[in-house]
Structures are given as C-alpha cells and as structure tokens.
C-alpha cells in the first residue's frame, strides 16, 4: 500500500506550479476540469483560496468553480489523509453489499458516518469504479481490492494503522 501522492514542494513552488498549470491550459475556462485535476495533484486536495485564484485567472465566477469542484466526487475540498480508501457503491457493488463494508470501515477507524474525519485515512464513497466484475470493490490509493468483505476491509485498515504506528 502506497501513501497518497502529494508533491512535497514548498508553498511557493506549488503556487508557481499552479501558475504554469494555468498557462499550459491557455487560461481557457473550458479547461477548468483538467486544471482542477492538475491542481489537486499538486496540493492533494483543492484549497479554497487556490480555487478562488483559479476563478480569477480564468475569469470564471468563484461559485461556478466551486460548483464544478463539488460536482465530481473525485475532487476533495478538504485535505485528505495519507491513505484514501475509496469504496464503490455503484449498482453492482451496492447489490453485492457494499454498505456493510462501509460500516466495517468506520468501525475499524473509530469514526461515524456523521463525523467521518480521520487524520490518516480518508474514506470516500464513489459511484462505479469501472471494475464491476470484482464487486464489491475497494481501492486504497492506487491499489484495487476486489470481492471485498467487511472482515477483510477491517483487516486492511488495521494493517495500515499498525504500519503507521510502527513508523512513529
């Protein structure tokens, strides 16, 4: 299991990268989505101030930038944990019981659906990862785990927590 990618640039470097991302896309409002995608790679999420700046640079109202950023589940507006656990709840996965897996994940992390925030591990529910053959599917950062069960999911979480505890 790899940790989530986020460049380890200084804030100044990150900002310079944002500027070159904007340049690369010709500051074209129609390129908003690829721009947001690139900005997220830079920061690991989409900070509000940077979104406001993207709006200024593209001459797109901030409300529209925010709307696009919140429409796609792929974009995160809050800093995410080092590990991003994405559980698919598309039709196939849902039918094969993804919700009990979600409950197991929350329990293993000691969080609840209402307050799902965990420093290290961010749980995201997504609609169809395009791997319905493996349903129910769980993805941790880049690694795909098929035919998931609540027990296996809990075990994966425990493993991450142990591994990270060992690092401290």
């Amino acid at each position: 299991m790899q940790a989530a990618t986020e460049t380890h640039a200084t804030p100044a470097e990150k900002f310079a990268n944002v500027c070159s991302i904007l340049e690369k896309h010709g500051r074209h409002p129609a390129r908003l989505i690829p721009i947001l995608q690139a900005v997220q790679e830079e920061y690991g999420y989409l900070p509000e101030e940077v979104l406001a700046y993207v709006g200024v640079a593209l001459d797109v109202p901030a409300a529209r930038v925010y709307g696009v950023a919140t429409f796609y589940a792929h974009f995160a507006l809050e800093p995410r944990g080092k590990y991003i656990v994405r559980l698919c709840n598309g039709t196939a996965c849902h039918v094969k019981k993804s919700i009990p897996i979600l409950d197991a994940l929350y329990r293993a992390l000691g969080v609840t659906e209402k307050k799902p925030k965990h420093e290290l591990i961010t749980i995201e529910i997504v609609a169809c990862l395009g791997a319905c053959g493996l349903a129910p599917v769980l993805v941790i950062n880049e690694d795909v785990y098929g035919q998931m069960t609540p027990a296996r999911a809990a075990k994966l979480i425990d493993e991450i927590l142990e591994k990270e505890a060992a690092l401290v």
Partner: protein
Amino acid sequence: MTKKPVENTVSINGRPVAIEGERNLLEIIRKAGIDLPTFCYHSDLSVYGACRLCLVEIEGRGIVGSCSTPPEPGMKIKTHTEEIREIRKISVELLLANHDNNCPTCYKSNNCQLQRIARQLGVESIRFGQVLDRKPVDTSSPSVTRDPNKCVLCGDCVRVCSEIQEVGAIDFAHRGHQASVLPAFGKDLGEVECVNCGQCTVVCPTGALTPRSEMEEVWKDLMNPDLCVVVCVAPAVRVGLGESFEMDPGTITTGQMAASLKMLGFDQVYDTSFAADLTIFEEGSEFLQRKAKGEKLPQFTSCCPGWVKFTEQYYPELLEKLSTCKSPQQMFGALLKDRLPEMLGIAKEKIRIVSVMPCTAKKYEAKRPEFIHDGIADVDHVITTQELARMIKAAGILFSDLTPESFDMPFGFATGAGVLFGNSGGVTEAVLRFAAEKVTGKQLQSFEFKQVRGESGLREAAITIDGVQLKLAVVSGLKNAKTVAEQVRKGTCEYDIVEVMACPQGCIGGAGQPVSRNPHAKKMRTKGIYDADKMMPLHKSQENIFVADCYAKFLGDVGGDKAHHLLHTHYQSRRRLPDEGIAFFSGNGGQRLKVDVCLGTNCFIKGAQDVLNGLLGHAEEHKYENMVDIRASFCFEQCEEGPTVKIGAVTLNHATVDTAVQALSRELEHQLSGESAAKDECTSCSGCK
C-alpha cells in the same frame, strides 16, 4: 380523400396551429391557448430542460420535453395524455416530498409556481415519504433571503444571475441528494459578489429566493406614537402596485397609493420623484461641466445601487466616470433628515424615513456605511412594492375602493421628468430636457425625446443641441452594462452619457415589483410611466419650483458646498469574496514581517503574479522564510493603484518586482532595528507630511 397536412403547421391535440417562428414547442403550444406547467423555462434565458413538466407526446417519437424541441411541420402533438399527466404528477409529488411545505407562512404563498402547478395538476396526496434534510436559511443579505429547503433546483436563478447579470454569484454545487444552489464555497449570500438586484427572486418559482422583508420594522415604527414616520415613494411603484390588487400592469394608482399610506399611519407622504428632479439639477450640471472640460466622459449614471456595486467590484477604473450624485433615495434621505427637524419642529432622532421602492438593492444601499452618520441612517427602512401591498392587505384596507388623495407638500411635488426615472431611458430623457434648455437658454418646443425610448437592453441615440452632438447609451441588465464598460476599457467608447439600470427595462422591472405572469407586464408599466409624465402639469425638472426653493433657501448653488455635502457621494473599489488569501511562508519565528500581494483581478491583469513570484524567489534565495509571512490576497480595494502589495505597515501601489523587493529589504532592516519605515516611505499622497 385524406387531407394533406397544411404546410408549416403542427397539430396540437388534433387542431392545426401555424408555425410562426416559435423557437420551441412550448411557445407554439402556449400560443394555441394551452398552458403547460414549467419550472425551468423562461423565454429570456437559455433552455435547461431539467424539470420535465413541459412533456408532450409526439406521434412516432414518444414523449419529449416541449421546451427543448423545435417545431417541425406535420408534427402531431398531444399535451395532456393519461401517461403525461401521471408523469407530471409524479414529478411534482417528488418535489413536494423534499420541500418545506409550510405554505401558509411562506412569503411566496399565492404566487408560488409549485403550489399553483400542484393545484392545477390535481395533486391531492404525496405518495412518497418526506426526505427533507433541513438546511439553515440564509438571511445574511440585506436584499435577498435564501431558503434552501424550498429550492426545486430548476436553475432559473443561476441562469438569470449569469446570463442576464453576468455576476454568477450563485451556482449549482454538490450532486445527487446533496445538490443545491449556493454562493461560492457555500458562503452566505451577503458575503459574496451578489449585487442585490433580486432578479433571481423574480424567476424563482418557489419561496427559495425572496426579497428580504422589512415590514416588521416599519410596523413597529408606525405603532410608536413618539415617532414621526415619513414615507417616500419611488416613481415605478405607482404603476406596479395595482397588480397586487388585480389591476392591470401599468395602471396608475398614485392617488390610491397616497390614500393608503395615510391610512397606514404615515405622518408625511412624499414623492421620490421630487428627489429625482433634484438629482437632475445636480447630475445635469455635473454633466455639462464635464462635457465642457471634456473630462471623465462618458458620465455614467449612479442612481442604481446594483450597478454601483457591480462597478466597484468589476470596473474600479470606471468609478471616476460615475456621476458623484447620490441616488434620489439617498439624496432625499439626507435632505429630509437635514430639513425636517426644523420644518416640523421634531428632533432628528424622532424622525424615521421609510422608502417604498420597486427594488431590492435599495435595501442594501440604505445600509451602506457612508449613508449612516453617528448611528442615524439617512433612510431608515426600505420596503418594496410587494411589501407595501402586503401591509395594505394586512391593515384590511380595500385598496381598489379608495378615494384618491395627494402627496404632501412640499416634498410631494414633482415634475414628469422626475417620474420618468422609473423607466429605462428616463434619467437620460430628464437630463436632456434639462441640458437642452440650459445650453440654448431657450424653452424647448416639445419636451419628449422619443429617441431614447425603447425596449432593447442596449440602445444608442445621438442628439444635437445647439450644434453640439451628444452620443448617448441607455443600458439595462448588467450583461449589457458590461459590454459598454469593456468598450471604455478598450478605449473604443464614444458616448457622452451612459445610463445604466441593473434590472431589465429599468426600475419598473425591479425585483421589488409584484411578480407578474403577464408577459407584457413590463411594457404596460413602461407605458404607465410615460402616461403619468403626460398627466403632470410640468415636465422638466428645472420647472420644479420647490426644488428651486430648496436651493434658494438653504442648498445654495447647484453643485456648491452644501449641495455637495448633502447630495453627492464617493465610491470605492470592492472585493468580491471575503479575503482568505493563500499563505506561502508562515509558521515559526518570532516577529515576522507580513507581506501581502494582491492577486485580485485588477492587480492580476497588471502583472501582480510576477511581483509575487519575484518576492517569493527573493525570500527563498535570501533564506527569509523565518522572517516573513508571504500571502497572496484577493483585492485590497485599491484596484485603481494596482498592483498593490502590503509589506508590514507600508502599502506599495503600482508595484513592480524591483520596488517590491526593495521595499521588502528596507522593511526587514527597519524591523531588525526595531521601527517601521511606514512614515517616511509612504509616497501615495503628501497628505500626512
């Protein structure tokens, strides 16, 4: 023999209807006298096609959305089949299932499309369980209240704000059952770039967006025997108010309106058209001066607070071209608070000024800090035409049966020119009636300038007075205003006067007016205003003897000191979002020098990004990380002087990489030696030296 389909017709429920340039089936069906329910269709906006209420069946094609299907000859259309009626009912029931159904207490009750359509379709029960996930109501804006629990996600507001006003203050956010219409970053409407025009409340079919009400405050003052409550009524109100009492749009109700205000208990009933006449003295003279000197042209009008805020946010370099005249509402407030204590023998603290306006932005305007002195506002409350109608109904007054009465003197006396302010083109025409006589010294033969009238949101006219040609533009809708503003920015604008009203067709189309389902309502109100002008005995502001009397008795000269103090104002560039800034260096180290680089639009255009990168590079190179905090901010409201950089207590205008780096080094040195360089480094003005 079978009848061949007649060319260029469609069949609607078996009857032929000619296609006459309709853009979609909905238009042609409505033309045929059949009302299809719709939530997301407005003829002035783009087609969205989301609500699925406008469904029809086309033979051979099945069920389609009529708003997004163009008519084709020979189409056989059915509008109310069993299946369609059932689908529509289900749609409405689904909407009701996550709607806050507190209809009797909703502001929109009576005028709500959801209510109307549910009734029309015969929805008698809701088959689905309530799934409303209650969200807080946003009351942050002085002009518009946003209740997300009543939103049906039709997107009408989003489109009006971006397509007609080009503001884009609200948009769809999130998706699925979380989807909602929100200002940027889920902030409150009062914090963002909304210009308070209220046009979103006009198109919103439900009570999700409504004009912010101030009726309670007014009732309270009216019931307080210690107060003298004065009311001033804007020109456009008299041709809209009647609609709330089943009269036709454009019916002139001045007399009943005055009578009802007196019955409500207002102590003095005045006409804002008086202040409009006063505005013409000031604004007309200001224009003649600018024209003579050839400076600060085109002169933009400043009576619309939506347009003023728009300029402050998007076109700070245009602010100097705005007339410095306050709007009639604010002139009136300032004048009355100054004069009435003496005239009525009542202490200023005991006088309340209430404005009745066709407008929601006027509520915001009255609360601008420059119009409040030592806690006393020039205008205390602003209610809309809609709110006045409600108050009249609440008091049980039978409006239609009232015997007309008149305004009170002297501030109820106006000329037709003042009344014209209600129409788009009205201010321009009133200025022309003034300027033409001032310039030529001769009396005008005919007082009407029909060249400036019309329905288009961007009209031009050229008028020659005494051999001098004046080029005018009359603009309504902020998208059109943007077109002219861009011309000025590019240096291609040749106008002398530009009149701007944020609301399409001017104040008669303001968001405070009764919401009308009559497609000709605005046209009829416009005619009402022109008719009202004709009915007045005088038609030129300079003929208003009571305004002239004000100058003679205490205002002094037009544009003089006293007049300037009371009747003129100033503008400031304004940021669109609350400033949060992007931090680059911040963290440990004791006393750190704060550096803020503005990356707002105006500074950005002028190269602020290079300045920022220059500073960052410099700081990294010299390992200043622990001595400075560098942030990018969005707008210090000094846009005309951009790029703007703040380093400690020093503000640097017109910054370049070099001047910014120099200033940074200097300030760091000073910080080390324990004092700020602020005093001797300020070069922006010599005021404090």
